[in-house]
């Protein structure tokens, strides 16, 4: 536009597109490496289980966070995609004798497709209308699967135990460490996926829609199309967690796969950690999941209630005093890319 380039402009153009904080990159690298090495420190079975649950819930919350953080829509029905993932891999294995590894991919694909079908009519809805619509659709899935004979109705699908070929059946009976690594890989994978999304053109467009959808469309962004894309990506991140969970517990039924509690839990974890922030789901999961796992040990059968009470109280406190989540307690320079002076 201007022919004579000012030195200030030249300076601005020479800035990199993204700042990489060297220290945080090193920290991330060290953390990932030590998570991979963790099983070699001969941890207890419980520790492996706990870490795995933290990873899985972080991925699930990350999935929810992609939708809420990028496009501003609040889903109360994310269990749909968890359930689809769980049923897809189980169905492929039980009925079609296809390895769960393919089943995971199928679950991802089906979830994305279902997200598109659901998203097209309801993503136009604003605020509470959308939230309630997802809540009702989520419950509808549960009701339908409870009465669908092909997938075992209420009793669900039992995955037959296979001790001969752990890798093709994705069943690891001797040690749960394999599940640990599978969920860790998805955990790291989802982190980098969201990290890339953040820095992509798609990320810019989705954030624009979240902040001001009218302005976004005045800048050439097809708002409803991009909202659907965000919903589909979110669903695809959720699905493999359902598949892994199914392989871990070897049973999928409408109650554990399409439970409303899953939808609520991913929301609580994200809000606890910080919505729209890549670290939010990880922090939220690292805080909330140990609470429920430990309370289950200490309080036995009633643990389910105690942990929920603690959850609920914590989330109310966060809503009142720290609506931006725990992540907002960390000083800004550590969480965000450095600004030029």
């Amino acid at each position: 536009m201007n022919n004579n380039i000012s030195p200030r402009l030249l300076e601005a153009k020479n800035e990199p597109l993204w700042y990489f904080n060297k220290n945080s990159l090193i920290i991330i690298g060290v953390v990932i490496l030590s998570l991979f090495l963790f099983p070699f420190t001969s941890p207890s079975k419980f520790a492996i289980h706990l870490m795995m649950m933290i990873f899985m819930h972080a991925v699930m919350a990350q999935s929810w966070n992609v939708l809420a953080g990028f496009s501003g829509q609040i889903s109360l029905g994310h269990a749909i995609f968890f359930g689809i993932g769980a049923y897809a891999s189980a169905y492929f294995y039980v009925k079609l004798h296809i390895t769960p590894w393919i089943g995971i991919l199928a679950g991802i694909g089906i979830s994305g497709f279902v997200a598109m079908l659901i998203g097209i009519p309801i993503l136009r809805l604003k605020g509470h209308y959308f939230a309630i619509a997802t809540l009702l659709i989520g419950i509808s899935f549960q009701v339908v699967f409870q009465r669908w004979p092909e997938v075992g109705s209420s009793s669900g699908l039992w995955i037959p135990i296979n001790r001969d070929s752990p890798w093709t059946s994705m069943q690891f009976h001797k040690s749960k460490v394999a599940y640990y690594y599978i969920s860790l890989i998805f955990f790291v994978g989802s982190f980098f996926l969201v990290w890339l999304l953040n820095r992509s053109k798609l990320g810019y467009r989705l954030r624009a829609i979240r902040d001001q959808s009218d302005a976004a469309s005045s800048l050439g962004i097809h708002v409803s199309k991009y909202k659907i894309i965000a919903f589909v990506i979110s669903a695809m991140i959720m699905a493999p967690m359902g598949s892994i969970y199914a392989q871990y517990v070897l049973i999928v039924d409408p109650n554990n796969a399409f439970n409303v509690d899953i939808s609520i839990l991913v929301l609580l974890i994200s809000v606890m950690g910080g919505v729209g922030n890549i670290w939010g789901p990880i922090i939220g999961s690292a805080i909330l999941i140990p609470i429920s796992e430990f309370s289950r040990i200490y309080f036995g059968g009633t643990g389910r209630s105690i942990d929920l009470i603690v959850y609920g109280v914590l989330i109310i406190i966060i809503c009142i005093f720290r609506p931006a989540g725990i992540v907002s307690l960390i000083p800004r320079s550590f969480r965000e890319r450095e600004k030029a002076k």
Partner: protein
Amino acid sequence: MTSQVIIQALISGILMGLIYALIAAGLSLIFGLMEIVNFAHGDHLMISMFSAFWFWMLFGIDPIFSIPLTILLMAAIGVATHYFIIRKILNSTMLVQICATFGLAVVLRALAQLLFTPDFRTIKNPIIQGKFEILGIFIGKPQLYASLVCLIAFILLYFFVTRTEAGTALQATSQDRQAAEILGIPSNKMFALGWAIGLSCVAVAGSMLSNFYYVFPDVGVNFSLFAFVAVALGGFGSITGSLIAGIIIGIVESVGGLLIDPSFKLLYVFAVYLFVVIVRPQGIFGRY
């Protein structure tokens, strides 16, 4: 299938619908005032039912007589909810508001499970029981009285909101908070009043439901879903809208269950919601 069966379904649908309507009216009133959806509404209903149950169990007070006590209890809970939680998130984002009331729902339900166990309980031999027959149609007395009491409560609510000074103040705050403040109506007090009345509606509905419905910690879930649907149908904030919407839902539930498949009752109601919000997002009746 005879027409008698259909009329039977229609009548029981309308009777349940009136109960849904009162529950929805409470939700709608709160939403109209401060644009907050109380996701713990069903759990407040559950508490009302437990209140009626324990008054009967511990003191032998029949649910019909414990209504005033339950109203007092729920109104107090409503004011406390507003004072300790809602007041502090009024200006927060919708997400934070949803989370706070969801958090409350989680706490209330878990507390009920911890204190009362997940058992299903019933009130044995309440004063209102049995059924009668007119022209071959059976009507359960508890259902009939429940819907009548809910209808009366609804009419009282309507008169309160439209004819009394406090009600008018409530409406003024609902329509324009700032303008009402200028006229000297303290919005904070109005909000507390709104919560007290909103949960009183639930108290009446819960007490009457406890006459014929199982009482257990998760009992509120489906009722709250129906209330969301009713409020969306009737238009968020519209009290009369929720009456009509409640009845529609009751009819859709029972007639749909009769004509198609009773195990998908929930889905028919949800389908109505989705149809309405997608075709007409402002609800059937709009606001007020």
